[in-house]
């Protein structure tokens, strides 16, 4: 059974290695506000921060363009850095980009690779803990919003979302609703009705490929639109 836990709550009487939990006196305690599943011994954060992991898809804004590096604002404790040998196109300050995380270096800078410039459009910021809900299981949620609003959307795991074309206002409203009601059930149907999208069949896709697929799907959608 799932229950909401707050920092300092006892999870189990045994010392277990659970993400976002600490072990003290051979007992495991939560350090965040989250949903704890006693059978699976898993803690799902309801609020949380983004930790850079290799191959994460992120959306960012170019802060400064120097001779062969660009610094990127990522909505995270650390700044992003693009080294020119990893990029093909020239970027200038203020550009929106989509990129993959290569590594987090010792000085606390996120090295990015494969940057792509996202032309026009706008960026919104959501809490990184809500990103998985915005994507939905097997990307169902984001597919619905993309198809219903005909907006091209790129979701960064860092909590920045880029949108362009179509009914942007409706797409933003839908994403905000998902974030607001992330802990409730039956949300996919609700958003489906809101944006007027056809129902999606469920597919099982591993978590890592989710965001990449989202991007590809969005590109297809745009091609279809053209």
């Amino acid at each position: 059974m799932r229950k909401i836990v707050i920092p300092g709550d006892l999870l189990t009487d045994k010392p277990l290695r659970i993400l976002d939990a600490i072990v003290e006196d051979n007992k495991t305690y939560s350090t965040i506000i989250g949903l704890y599943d006693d059978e699976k011994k898993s803690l799902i954060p309801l609020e949380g921060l983004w930790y850079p992991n290799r191959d994460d898809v992120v959306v960012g804004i170019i802060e400064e363009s120097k001779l062969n590096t660009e610094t990127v604002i990522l909505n995270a404790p650390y700044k992003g850095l693009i080294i020119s040998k990893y990029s093909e196109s020239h970027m200038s300050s203020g550009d929106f980009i989509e990129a993959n995380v290569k590594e987090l270096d010792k000085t606390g800078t996120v090295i990015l690779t494969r940057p792509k410039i996202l032309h026009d459009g706008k960026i919104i910021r959501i809490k990184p803990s809500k990103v998985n809900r915005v994507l939905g299981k097997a990307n169902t949620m984001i597919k619905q919003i993309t198809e219903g609003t005909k907006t091209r959307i790129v979701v960064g795991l860092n909590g920045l979302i880029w949108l362009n074309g179509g009914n942007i206002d409706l797409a933003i409203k839908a994403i905000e609703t998902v974030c607001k009601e992330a802990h409730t059930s039956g949300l996919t149907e609700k958003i489906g009705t809101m944006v007027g999208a056809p129902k999606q069949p469920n597919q099982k896709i591993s978590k890592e490929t989710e965001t990449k697929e989202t991007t590809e799907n969005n590109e297809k959608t745009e091609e279809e639109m053209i």
Partner: protein
Amino acid sequence: MKGNIELIKDGKRLDGRLPGDLRDIKIKTNVVKNAQGSAYIEWGNNKIIAAIHGPNEALPRHTANPNKAVVKCRYMMAPFSSSEEHGRSGMNRRAVEISKVTGEVFENVILLDQFPGTEISIYIEVIQSDGGTRAAGITCAAVALAASGIPIKDLPFSVSAGKVGETVILDLNKIEDNYSDADMPVAVLPRTKEVVLLQMDGSLTKKQYTDAMALILESGKKISKIQRDALISQYSQ
């Protein structure tokens, strides 16, 4: 400051409370949109907003610690928060002191080693004050921290105790604070009963101190429950 005001009459305090009673406490979370996490508390006549920013890159860079995050706390009273002069010309000595001790409370609570080289900012803004704002501020900031998703090992609560004559009282308001014989704000981690803040004006005997701590720990159960309810209520339908 001692005066001729009779603070306890027929066993009751000026506002009708018994010596061991708390004032009414209400907490609301996520009141500020652009902060990482925030909370608003109404503790009697105190009204306080606490907001959390970060973890961000520590600025100026020399303040950064490569092994852990630094906590920067700012406690400020709004110029209109009380009848006395406050905050019109920036932080005064009192605000600097409270900012320091509050920051130290949270240094003991946040898992700082997870964010090396960054800073976590805690802002406590007192909108209306009626005594015990540092305790209310810490209680409120703890909720804001939990709401922000920054990992903390426990949810601290804080409350003050003091004495009027020989009677130990809990949760002093402005008049009691000014005219009582002792005032002792304490912050505690409820799980381990670890004391993370203890300051005192005036003096207490050993027995009075023990009684005061017992009152504080007892009232802590109520405060912790209010904090928990505030955090969980945002997710209940």
